[in-house]
């Protein structure tokens, strides 16, 4: 079974987000970059399916040359192939429609011919940074594939994919035939942590480079802003176990007891 995981390089944010001076990006100079959490699970699932069913797993990203860091990380975590739709580092941010169109064209280019060269195409349900909720679904439309979103449990049953997603009190089960797009959420699996050795080996792998074309976007970023803090300071009820009395009084005032 041929699997694909589409991933995005995003800043590895901590306790606070700092913007660049032009307010166009998150200043990641002191933070470094990582893979969106949902997409770490996309890679893991693409690798596990191939471990169980045989075949090849591929990691694909759209971004500047630096995104190879995340593609190598995917290979270190067990993916067989890596491909990059390489953008100009000076490009303005790519929106969801342009990203999806370029990814769809990249997937066709990697497919060597008319049919889609992948049986399962995993995406994150939404990216950690921009969260537009559109890329996986839009790629599915470009390639005319069925898509199940928000998947937290996944199984392959012959040519059928069984995908489940959480709803309060249980899960919704969808069954689709391959090829299909599956957008996943964190919790689907536990992504493996690569060893230093597999990281070193991954770097030796050749990454396929493709040139994306960019379409216009109806939604245009103007600038980013760190929201004003609404927070004050919490009322300190006390220190240590003695504070429990006062906490119970508060619970009674709030009528939660």
């Amino acid at each position, binding site marked *: 079974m041929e699997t694909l995981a589409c991933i995005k390089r995003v800043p590895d944010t901590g306790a606070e987000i700092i913007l660049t001076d032009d307010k166009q990006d998150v200043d990641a100079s002191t933070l470094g970059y990582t893979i969106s959490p949902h997409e770490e699970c996309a890679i893991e699932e693409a690798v596990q399916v191939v471990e169980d069913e045989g075949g090849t797993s591929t990691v694909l990203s759209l971004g500047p040359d630096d995104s190879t860091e995340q593609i190598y990380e995917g290979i270190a975590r067990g993916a067989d192939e890596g491909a990059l739709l390489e953008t100009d580092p000076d490009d303005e941010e790519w929106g969801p429609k342009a990203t999806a169109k370029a990814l769809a064209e990249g997937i066709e280019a990697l497919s060597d011919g008319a049919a889609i060269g992948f049986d399962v195409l995993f995406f994150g349900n939404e990216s950690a*940074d921009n969260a537009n*909720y*559109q890329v996986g*679904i839009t790629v599915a439309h470009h390639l005319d594939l069925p898509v199940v979103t928000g998947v937290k449990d996944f199984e392959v049953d012959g040519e059928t994919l069984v995908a489940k997603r959480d709803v309060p009190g249980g899960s919704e*089960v*969808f069954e689709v035939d391959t090829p299909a797009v599956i957008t996943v959420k964190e919790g689907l699996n536990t992504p493996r942590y690569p060893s230093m050795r597999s990281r070193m080996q991954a770097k030796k792998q050749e990454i396929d480079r493709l040139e994306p074309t960019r379409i216009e976007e109806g939604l*245009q970023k103007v600038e980013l802003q760190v*929201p004003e803090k609404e927070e004050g300071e919490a009322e300190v009820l006390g220190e240590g176990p003695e504070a429990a009395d006062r906490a119970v009084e508060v*619970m009674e005032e*709030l009528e939660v007891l």
Partner: protein
Amino acid sequence: MVLAFVEHDDGEIEETSLEMLTLARDVASQAGEDLHAALVGGADVAAELGAYGVDTAYVAEGEVAETYAPEAWAECLGGLLDELDPEALIGPGSDVAHEIFAHVAAKRDLPMSANTTAVTVGEEYEIERQRWGGSLVEHATMAGETKLLTAPEHEVPIEAVGDGEAAVETVTPEIGEDAFRVTLDRIEESDIEGVPLSEARIVVAGGRGVGGPEDFEQLEELADLFENATVGASRVAVDEGWRPHDDQIGQTGAKISPDLYIAAGISGAIQHWVGAKGAENTLAINTDPEAAIMYKGDYAIVGDLHDVVPQLIEQVKAAKD
């Protein structure tokens, strides 16, 4: 006109849809247009939308209303767009609305802004939307025949504006078989007992400070003393394997909106807080008086949760007797 996609369940309009209607009314009033609503099924609740400023509620019936098929639901909304030509289609920030709006946006090449908090209506819309789960605001412009917008959950208050009834029009859309290729097959009930995090009125959660899976038992015991209460966890506690991922609160986990959130041994990183900020009240228990959660919450106890929680359990028991 402005069209709002309204979700309902078990004869009730979803709270997140009522929240969204506050934003939708604002957009309609700026545009000087009427606000209408679109529902899939729900003829029994549609008239109630009049109290939230909805003029006419279009209720789709037939095959599309019998099951959940995202592309078919998107086609149903798309048919209404063709017929009514609204300048904006607005929905709640739910999994379902995000999914079907993304289908509509892709199929009809319309712009979509997810988790939109503010709109200034003009030839182009100026919008503010959430990034990083709400830790960052994006200012953007939107151009397109119909602008698709979703409103984030638990950000905007529900406001009733009258006691009128909406006119209800039922429609039976004709939707091709292709749109049903992904259709809900079945629902499996969870074997996890208790209240889902998103619906709990009291949430007791633990983080790194809990130190291991065993000590979550104290938090369980505390939660058990309340009605409609459940236990949650920070991403650290889940990554450590102390709790299942279903318990995770945060950007990539559950978004909660309880009356009281008790956060024990949780520092309050932004990725956690974006899932917890919907809480009416937060009581933090932390050894570090400078922890971020001490500035974000309402109440704080400075101390080790291993000492504080057992005492809290005793006092709550005493208060209940």
